[in-house]
């Protein structure tokens, strides 16, 4: 993990699929509820899937940056 910032929900989503497939309805409030799917070929992941991915990425980042 060589990322310059601790992974957040936006990055976790970005790591699920390539390209501009999602955005948020409220850019000031990037939460699961505000996720908008832009790519018809992709579906909205469950909140559990997002949290699992985020935890995985944050753990890897924390281990690499301790």
């Amino acid at each position, binding site marked *: 993990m*060589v*990322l*310059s910032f601790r992974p957040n929900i*936006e990055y976790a989503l*970005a790591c699920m699929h390539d390209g*501009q497939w*999602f955005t*948020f309805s409220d*850019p000031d409030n990037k939460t699961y509820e505000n996720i908008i799917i832009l790519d018809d070929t992709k579906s909205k992941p469950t909140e559990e899937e997002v949290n699992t991915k985020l935890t995985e990425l944050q753990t890897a980042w924390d281990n690499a940056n301790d």
Partner: protein
Amino acid sequence: MALIKLNVARALTGATPVANGGTALTSGFVNGGSVTVADMWQVTSGFVCTTGTNYFTAWSHTTTRGKGYLASTMSESSGVFTFPSTGIYLVQFMMGTEAQTSNADNFFGRMYVTLDDSSYEAVSAGLFGQTSEGNSGMRSKTIHALVDVTDTSQVKVKFAYDSASNAVYMHGGHLQNETAASFIRMGDT
């Protein structure tokens, strides 16, 4: 020494040479300045780039603190930007990227223009050596072009990246302009 005051507005017609303290212009002044359109957009969210050439399709007006714009704004649909009026525009596009792994490779950001609302050609490119350097391979690049918008229904702009791998993260978001485009009308076509 006697001082003679001249009513310049009544005494002069045409252009006053620069050597005589004038501007050499006969017209072009507009109250508030000659720039009549200024607008800025940003990529809505960060994302991992797909290999190959891909157009940016998700944009929103910038929401950064203190942002401003002038006059009519650009319109955008599926990544294609339409100008609000004819004129010569300075178009600038900045990109912020980050290599996720050391496998990231060369990366290009490009600006495309169409003159017929159909066929696009690249008019400006930014080249990144995106290989990670053992830490974050962060890059920021701005590209520019002057676009002569003679017909707002025909002359349009869009932006793309060309990535050699899917190991590059494109920064987006709203608090700061990290991947964003600005459009400034400089004058008449």
